[in-house]
């Protein structure tokens, strides 16, 4: 039986594909963007929401490093002994919305506000069926978009 790559949640990013994109909502009334998909607009209360691709590049808006293993509901198969600190940040997408995501890297000198970021889809854990559970994350972009 082959191992499948299953997204951690439905409708978060286009998958499978060689060029994944985050999926969000755009309010048809006020034009605000949201991630993930929303049924109602937190800005203008409209329910006219359209689904849009938010892209795969952005700019780091703020960041930190998760230095200890989170308690459940964190589910990564790690133990306190095997845990590797990971970055967390908000990445400002081209449309302006800032998406919270895991960041690849665990040292402060790897991050600075304003750095270009690239979306990656990576394995978080193996599920009960032996499939890979895939999560979205960002890493430093190799070149300006």
């Amino acid at each position: 039986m082959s191992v499948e790559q299953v997204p951690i949640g439905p409708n978060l990013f286009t998958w499978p594909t060689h060029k994944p994109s985050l999926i969000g909502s755009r309010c048809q009334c006020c034009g605000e963007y949201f991630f993930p998909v929303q049924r109602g607009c937190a800005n203008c209360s409209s329910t006219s929401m359209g689904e849009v691709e938010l892209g795969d590049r952005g700019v780091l808006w703020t960041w930190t490093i998760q230095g200890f293993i989170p308690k459940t509901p964190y589910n990564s198969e790690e133990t306190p002994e095997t845990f590797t600190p990971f970055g967390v940040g908000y990445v400002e997408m081209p449309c302006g919305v800032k998406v919270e995501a895991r960041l690849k890297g665990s040292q402060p000198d790897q991050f600075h506000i304003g750095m270009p970021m690239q979306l990656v889809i990576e394995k978080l854990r193996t599920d009960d069926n032996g499939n890979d559970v895939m999560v979205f994350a960002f890493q430093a972009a190799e070149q300006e978009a």
Partner: protein
Amino acid sequence: MSEVAIVGIGMHNFGRSPGLSGLDQGANAVREALQDAGLSWKDIQVAYGGSQDAGNADALCNQLGLTALQFTNIWNGCATGGSSLSAAYNAIKSGSADVALAVGFDKHEPGAFNADPKDWGLDDWYGEAGLMVTTQFFAMKIQRYMAEYGITDDALIKVAQKAFYNGSLNPRAWRRQALSYDDIANSMMVSHPLRKYQFCSPAEGGAAIILCNSNLAKRFTSKLVYLKAAVVRTRVYGSFEVYSPCQAKEQGNAPSVKASQDAFELAGVGPKDFDVLQLQDTESGAEVMHMAENGFCEHGEQEHLIQSGATAINGSMPVNTDGGCLANGEPVGASGLRQVFEVCLQLRGQAGDRQVQNNPKLGYTHVYGAPGLSGVTVLAV
């Protein structure tokens, strides 16, 4: 028009109380507040209270007495205590009750909270991916704030140093040992740029405040503190908040901005009028940001205020005189009421070694909680 007076304050010391449930600690706080007021439990006409992890506050009646009073359980994140007090204030102000109680208590396991995404309108993936961690939010908010407004790491260390020094002067604080600059600077990095001693710890404890219609208040005590405003406001669109998978393109005001402005208006005072402040210091950066969000200075001005000692007990703007959340820990249900307890002591002149000098007349408390709400009070003698 009648005013709202605080006639009794009580606390079960924050920290760890092995063998006592959260409810036990809440009941102790209520008993102390009753004693302070010279009242008995049957005098309480309406009560509001809550906890996060220690049960419904109404269960307090089983050990305090079943007296038919109207008791409403409140749950509003870290602003639970502030929300209980606001409800009790409104009960007195509306005339529906003459004597009201706000009570909070909790008993948390050591370590960071582990919230369930579903309780906050989020899907499981958010928690599974490791994003449902409050410490991350506070770190990311101050990280951005430092870059925008020039707040230094040095200032954040000094905020924590002040908290533990104030705690060392407070016989009822949990952390009563002053820490050196190096103790804090060299402590473990929890969530960059914040270290172990710059975060408060989930803890245990209870706090209770008894309110009374001011027309009757003089019967009970000569040490009246007036609750001039008790306001809770939630976030507006664009506010940078905890448990948010995304943030809006344009950043909006924090909920503390609206809460403080409305409280000042209700009380007929301005931010320059205050003598003593309690500002939510979940971590040392929060205290810094909340100084400006509540209108006590401009964004960025905190750096100078902290470096010059303005926020110390003997400074021009004393903040968290009892050691705040950093030295007292955070039993979520009780935390906002601990702030009111401390400001009442200060305004009564009963704060001992940490007493703000020159008879402080006007005090302020501010509690902030997930998923983005603030509860503030204006207190006066």
